[in-house]
């Protein structure tokens, strides 16, 4: 980074050992002081919750944080871009999106009236697929699917990294899934309530303990039944800005069954797909998406994974996460996506304190 402080990667042990040989000294505080300042100037986690910065400008002021006037010619080009995007692309996309969403709501409600049967399932799949495709067109989405032979099978659990609500549409564009996700209000809530009538999606309230058990129960039933649609889950639990993969919540990995990992990587050059839910609500987010140039992304279907002997849920989750991160070219962070909203657990801080004091004691300073 272009930091004012040159971020030093030496370990705590080496650095403090370099300062003195034995005994606690005044100097020890300096190491932590510096680390603290490095964190204040720039920390790894918060970086992931704001949009990726582009190396070269793509004529969208929103992606250029350092925006300032460069030249008249560039401004003119940018101005033309604005006109094209807002006056031409936006109305087109908006119309398509309206058609898509309305069809989805109406279609699934109608299909939902039918009694459960194979006809209903077939029609539900048809409605979902068609509407997804309309919606992807509405966003000018260009999606490259890789390794289609690994597409998630029935009775499996599909797991992917999460960047925006569009992820679901990107995947349902190519196949049908039973979705698992947080209940939302507003337009999203309406869509959720309509679609759940036609297809057994699982929408839950995260804070409801009862709901969490319901999800686990549903997942277990699901995995046992090979005729059910694959379940789609985003184990990070929140939207990350597509440069890294955060901790996977272990719930989905405790069930057993076959996991089909999928990596989604958006090309930020054409439009920023990341939804910063603390900054924008869903409607303004969609507006930003629809006034970008396009949504271009790569989807990699990866070979199925199962839990190994002696592997616990957390290790399994990390293994899957590594595979996804590697495929998508994303970095892995040991942090919990929940940090977007909550504070770090005390256990982390205690860890660091423990390390330091262990080192001190080892150096023979006690007694």
């Amino acid at each position, binding site marked *: 980074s272009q930091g004012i402080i040159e971020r030093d990667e030496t370990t705590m042990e080496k650095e403090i050992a370099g300062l003195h040989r034995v005994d606690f000294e*005044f100097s020890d505080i*300096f190491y932590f002081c510096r*680390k603290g300042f490095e*964190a*204040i100037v720039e920390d790894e*986690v918060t970086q992931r919750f704001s949009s990726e910065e582009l190396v070269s400008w793509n004529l969208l002021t929103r992606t250029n944080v350092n925006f300032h006037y460069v030249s008249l010619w560039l401004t003119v080009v940018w101005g033309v871009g604005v006109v094209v995007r807002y006056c031409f692309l936006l109305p087109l996309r908006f119309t398509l999106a309206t058609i898509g969403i309305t069809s989805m709501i109406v279609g699934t409600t109608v299909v939902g009236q039918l009694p459960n049967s194979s006809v209903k399932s077939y029609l539900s799949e048809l409605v979902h697929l068609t509407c997804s495709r309309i919606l992807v067109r509405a966003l000018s989405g260009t999606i490259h699917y890789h390794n289609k032979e690994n597409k998630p099978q029935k009775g499996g659990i599909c797991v992917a990294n999460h960047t925006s609500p569009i992820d679901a549409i990107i995947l349902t564009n190519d196949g049908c899934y039973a979705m698992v996700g947080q209940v939302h209000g507003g337009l999203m809530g309406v869509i959720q309530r309509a679609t759940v009538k036609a297809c057994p999606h699982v929408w839950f309230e995260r804070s409801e303990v009862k709901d969490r058990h319901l999800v686990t129960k549903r997942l277990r039933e699901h995995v046992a039944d090979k005729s059910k649609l694959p379940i789609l889950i985003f184990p990070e639990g929140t939207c990350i800005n597509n440069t890294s993969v955060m901790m996977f919540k272990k719930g989905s990995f405790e069930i057993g069954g076959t996991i089909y990992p999928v990596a989604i990587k958006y090309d930020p050059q054409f439009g920023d797909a990341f939804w910063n839910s603390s900054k924008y609500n869903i409607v303004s987010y969609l507006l930003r998406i629809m006034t970008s140039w396009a949504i271009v992304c790569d989807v990699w279907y990866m070979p199925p994974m199962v839990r190994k002997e002696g592997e616990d849920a957390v290790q399994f989750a990390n293994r899957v996460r590594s595979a996804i991160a590697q495929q998508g070219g994303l970095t892995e962070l040991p942090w919990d996506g929940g940090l977007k909203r909550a504070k*770090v657990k005390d256990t982390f*801080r205690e860890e660091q304190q423990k390390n330091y004091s262990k080192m001190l004691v080892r150096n023979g300073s006690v*007694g």
Partner: protein
Amino acid sequence: LGESTGLPLSALSHPTPVTSDQVEHLHRRFKQLSNDKPTIRKEHFDSIPDLEFNPIRCKIVQAFFDRRNLRQEEDGLVDEINFEDFLTIMSYFRPIEPNMDEEQLQRFRTDKIKFLFHMYDSDHDGIITLQEYRNVVEELLSGNPHLEKGAARSIADGAMLEAAQTCVGPMGPNQVYEGITFDDFLKVGSGGAVAGVLGAHSVAPCA
């Protein structure tokens, strides 16, 4: 079109040899921490996960609000700081530039050591007493459940004793060692190492 930092470098009341790029970077960071408000309060530092790791987190955050570090005449703590104050504190961590002369270098080092002195001296009386020193050591070691309660204290006491011997020389049986003054701190704190850890040995990467 365009946005500026809203803060011309010349407005800063004391010389801060940082590049305008670095100032912009820090300004963005400031806005991020303050949620786009003009001032930061202590609570705003809660949103930095990496900082949570740090055992002396409280002292570090407090350093930002310490009037002495902000080069103000009065004593005590302020409630909130603006971007200029933020830059002032950040400037204590500037690396040494190769073209500094001897006098600048000396002043630089002294400033940094003073900053750390203030961190120990929590009651702002200019002396680090035994109790204040104990507080710091305890904070640093607080996370380890295996360390007995007395251990932190004995470490602190040992270090203070050594400091006393270095600064005052052998003391008589009735002499009381008040505490470490700033001059003593300069002697004990192995100045070179101090400045080193604070980044004085690395050259500023003007990327």
